[in-house]
């Protein structure tokens, strides 16, 4: 079994869409994602998952120099930010892609699949 990182990225357009979502839209997505998470757990594929607060709330710490430096904001200015993720166990990439297909439909966003290093 290999662990895969399934990440959901939000760009500015996606962020705007999210903000424009109605209560019902949000509720529908939460229900879908909840059902998907339940399925991951029921089939033993679940390792961990979470949704992240908006990128404005991130803080960077750099301790590579003499003194740690704390700065407000993301590591790099980018058009896309990580919005949420799943870590799953799957037999191979095909199985991981199948989970990603279901996850993408559930969260109504594009999902990137990236394998963890095995050791």
């Amino acid at each position, binding site marked *: 079994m290999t662990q895969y990182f399934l990440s959901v990225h939000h760009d500015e357009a996606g962020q705007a869409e999210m903000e424009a979502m109605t209560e019902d839209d949000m509720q529908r997505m939460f229900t879908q994602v909840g059902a998907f998470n339940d399925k991951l757990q029921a089939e033993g594929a679940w390792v961990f998952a979470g949704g992240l607060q908006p990128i404005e709330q991130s803080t960077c710490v750099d301790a590579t120099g003499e003194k740690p430096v704390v700065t407000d904001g993301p590591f790099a200015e980018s058009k896309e930010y990580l919005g949420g993720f799943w870590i799953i166990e799957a037999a*191979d*990439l*095909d199985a*991981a892609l199948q989970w990603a297909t279901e996850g993408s439909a559930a969260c109504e966003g594009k999902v990137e699949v990236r394998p963890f290093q095995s050791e």
Partner: protein
Amino acid sequence: MDVTRTAVERIFRDEHGRVVAALARRFGDLDVAEDATSEALLVALEKWPVDGVPPNPGAWLTTTAGNKAIDRIRRERQRDVKHQAALMISDDTPHEATGLVEDDRLRLVFTCCHPALAPEARVALTLRLLGGLTVAEIAAAFLVPETTMAQRITRAKAKIKGAHIPFRVPAAADLAERLAGVLAVVYLVFNEGYLSSSADAEPLREELTDEAIRLGRILRTLLPDEPEVAGLLALMLLTDARRTTRVAGGELVPLPEQDRGGWDRALIGEGHALVRECLARNRPGQYQLLAAVNAVHTDALTVADTDWSQIVTLYTHLGSIAPSPFVELNRAVAVAELDGPEVALALVDRLPLTSYHAFHVTRADLLRRLGRSAEAREAYDAALAATENSAERAYLTRRRDQLSGP
């Protein structure tokens, strides 16, 4: 027995996919499989000219490569004592020309053409591992530096390993879609040979069309019941049958002007048999329909004998299962023969293909036939600007310069 280096290399190339696939299944690692197979070639080059070619060269290569792989794994594992226990991988699966081993090649091709790999990496891996071409040959085929191609292949193999792309034939539910990806790789290789897209290459590159046909034949052996596999092979054979008549004096010769006596009747016979087999199966798909179009062309002894209405029907069918402006363009060419250039031009003019050379070539020809020379000249210029193929440029330039009137 006189065994030349070329003969050894030819056998090696034919057996490459089988040997790599068998080793990949056995050792679960494409790198190990590929390197061991290459090492087996070196042994063959040394031994066969002295001892003669063994009765079953594929089995010999698989055994030799398998031993090389075990040697390598032993060497590596000795450096890494904690894995010592896992050292003794053994597999006594005999090498056979049918059955399990054929399945291995099928697994190999689906792994090489996995949708998680970049399209250019799929082509490169398929030619390298299944086709047995060297990295240098593949680099030359796609006119990129050898180091670039080597990196592309290395990166793709690293992804197969790191992301755990499975070495397996897809489940029935996914087979049709995944197979379409495999066929697209083969057809892409064929098309680059059919009409080279580069000014720096020969206009027709038979090393590529031949290789694509060889891959098509392998797929046909592996998947005898898939009509699209038969369709693609038929399409390539029927197209290739016209090869020697497609260029004369450095100039491309369009289909209606080709010397039909020069068409390869053996390839045509084989292609027609495949098309008939597809018709009998009655599970049409895009390659089968394109093959059928080519069967109609190769059936006609002269251009005037061409059953254009049949061709229009086939393109209409194709447009209904795989809608695309390219299909509409080809359909319009046939419509011109049935209903005249004016009707066809109206169809062509609404297609969003202004950066595609064949669009301008078709328009130029229709406008020429309508006597609209000035517009035809512009269309020839647009076509020339959109193609780098030397033979096509020579043909278009002559046609443009022969236009009469303003």
